[in-house]
């Protein structure tokens, strides 16, 4: 029919490798792909095997660091939580911690407890989010709906506690913004029971199911040395046997007051990373249960130094709500502060430099997804094409967070 091979056929790319060279097929995976998210990968496959993968990030780059220099430091809280909305609390916590250290603020005891409680909820939220997306990437729509259905219950709890479902804007330098109502604690305890039961079913449906098991088992292997060399973090590192968790190793919040353990798996494959997630959800539930018993139910929501700036008539209901007027008149010091928290996907790190005005001179942000990108690429080489989603999902890569 006079068809030209270039027109009707696979356009292969020639790679000079070895004596004969070889031909590979370049696939453009994303940013419009069903399972890529806002990132593009140039995937080179030789037959069914991925021989090279190059990321093309930046589709959702929003100049977070630069924007952080252009506004009052308190206005950065709603901005930075948009780095990773599923993990909103842990991001803003890290930022607030940095600002607290810069300004020399103390955090009230109740706020520490509340932050820890919400930080764990945030971890559950982000793990559910990642597990759900991972499940749909390996084809289980039930896992997807389980994750998002459960997360919906959780964000509804957030809504009555903080005032918004996914954008809490709740952690402020010095403390937290608003106290949850009584009914929040009651429902939270019930939610945890439901969550644990459903996570168990999720495990049976997606992970223990042989189909899902062999999708995850032995794919995307990342050895301990590689994980360390490529700076993997969060489940990406703990799935490879690196026993590091900022909650334990760089203590913050009240994690010392509760009993919990860092979940580590040594296998370094997608299954290990998924199991780390599932077990961390259970650990978080355990932490929250303990916190519910020991946390103070009354007390100021922000520390003394921050409360000092609040006008007296607003200070009366500091146990219930914190008003912004105090922050509005606060300027930054000529100082520097760092904040580091362990989010669901790994560690968040903020470094802020004060300028003496209301604006920060410089904000530095380091996010876990960006770190895990290199580890992900390393893990992908040599895998099969159908493993790509299974590995990609197991790192919980979140482009808005990586691109900042």
């Amino acid at each position, binding site marked *: 029919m006079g*068809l030209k091979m270039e*027109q*009707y056929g*696979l356009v292969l790319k020639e790679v000079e490798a070895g004596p004969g060279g070889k031909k590979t*097929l370049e*696939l453009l*995976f994303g940013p419009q*792909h*069903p*399972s890529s998210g806002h990132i593009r990968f140039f995937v080179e496959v030789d037959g*069914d095997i991925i021989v090279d993968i190059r990321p093309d990030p930046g589709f959702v780059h929003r100049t977070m660091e630069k924007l952080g220099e252009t506004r009052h430091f308190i206005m950065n809280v709603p901005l930075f939580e948009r780095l990773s909305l599923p993990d909103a609390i842990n991001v803003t916590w890290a930022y607030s911690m940095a600002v607290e250290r810069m300004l020399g603020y103390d955090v009230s005891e109740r706020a520490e407890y509340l932050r820890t409680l919400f930080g764990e909820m945030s971890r559950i939220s982000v793990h559910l989010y990642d597990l759900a997306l991972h*499940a*749909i*990437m*390996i*084809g*289980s*729509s*039930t*896992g*997807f*709906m*389980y994750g998002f*259905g459960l997360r919906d219950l959780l964000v509804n709890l957030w809504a009555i506690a903080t005032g918004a479902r996914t954008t809490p804007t709740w952690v402020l330098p010095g403390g937290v913004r608003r106290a949850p109502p009584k009914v929040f604690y009651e429902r939270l305890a019930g939610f945890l029971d439901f969550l644990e039961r459903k996570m168990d079913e999720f495990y049976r*449906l*997606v992970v223990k*199911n042989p*189909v*899902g098991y*062999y*999708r995850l088992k032995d794919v995307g292997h990342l050895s301990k040395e590689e994980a360390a060399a490529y700076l993997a973090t969060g489940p990406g590192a703990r799935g490879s046997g690196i026993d590091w968790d900022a909650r334990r190793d760089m203590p913050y919040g009240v994690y010392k007051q509760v009993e919990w353990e860092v979940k580590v798996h040594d296998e370094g494959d997608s299954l290990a990373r998924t199991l780390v997630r599932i077990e961390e959800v259970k650990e978080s539930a355990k932490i929250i249960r303990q916190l519910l018993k020991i946390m103070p139910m009354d007390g100021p929501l922000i520390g003394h130094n921050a409360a000092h700036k609040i006008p007296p008539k607003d200070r009366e209901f500091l146990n219930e709500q914190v008003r912004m007027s105090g922050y509005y008149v606060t300027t930054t010091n000529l100082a520097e502060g760092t904040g580091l928290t362990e989010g669901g996907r790994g560690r968040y790190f903020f470094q802020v430099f004060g300028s003496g005005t209301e604006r920060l001179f410089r904000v530095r942000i380091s996010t876990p997804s960006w770190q895990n990108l290199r580890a992900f690429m390393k893990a992908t080489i040599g895998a*099969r*094409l*159908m*493993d*790509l*989603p*299974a590995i990609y999902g197991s790192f919980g890569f979140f482009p808005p967070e990586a691109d900042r």
Partner: protein
Amino acid sequence: MGLPSWLLSPRLWDFLVDGVVSTLIILTIVWAERKIAARVQMRVGPFHVSPRLGGYLQLVADAIRFVMQEVIITADSYRVLFVALPPLFVALALTPSFLVPLSPHLALLSRPALHYGILMGIAILFYTFIMVVGIGWAVNNRFAYIGAAREALIITAYEIPVATAFADMFMIYKTIDPIEIVAKQMYIVGAIYNPAAFIVYIIGVAMATSRFPFEIADYEGDVATGPYSDFSSIFLALTYAGGIYIALFSYSLLGALVFLGGWAPITPGPWPADIWGNLAAAAFLLFKTFVLMLFFVFLRSVMPVARLDHALSFSWRWVLTLGVIATAIAATEYFVL
């Protein structure tokens, strides 16, 4: 009776019943698939279009949408096959259901040809999925190529076990005539005669019609929708969103005849005299088909997708072994019964 004789022709009735009921069954099965998945997934599924009917009319709405959508034929596709293959796919997928009888006297074909009805049906069904490979080629898109290549690999993997399963049953019944096959299953259905063959059949059909966990050729995770990834509108309805279900219907109809005893306990009288009996037999057969299809679509709600090489090795290693076991059982029964 006062009706003209052509109105009472069993061929016409077979055609009508098969055509109308298969359409209904396919619509219902798509709805049921969504509803079952929704129930397992803690949600409701189709609802707002006709809340009283549980959202059943959603399917009609979707169908209208598919038909009304703009037809997009991509510039670098091979136009002839791009347009010709989807209708061919549907036609081939539906044909087998016309080749088999719906009751002892209700059939489109008559004796010597009807004798080979099931065989012809299987043969045509095996050809149907070659269309998918053709579609993948015609679409001319990298993901479609990969999907088509996967489909080709899978075809080779499931064809032999499915053929074995049917052959085993023919061996047990000592006939390939559909009516006699059903007559042999009057008390015990084929699935009990030879459970191994039934399991092979189930797995093979799940692979053939891209049911979970073998939705590999059109696996969303890496190849978007594989061979169908550039299709829109009516073409998508004919292939991915409709054609596969029609093929599933045909496979299930053959399965219901061979493994589930067809219209078994019902033994209607000759055609023009016992119209209701024959229609009841047809209804019972189609009900069994429906139940089989329900199981296939139910798998979506509990299964992820298997990896290509795992599926292939699973099929070549385990399913084929099971097929051999089924053959052994069939051979034993061939001499014992």
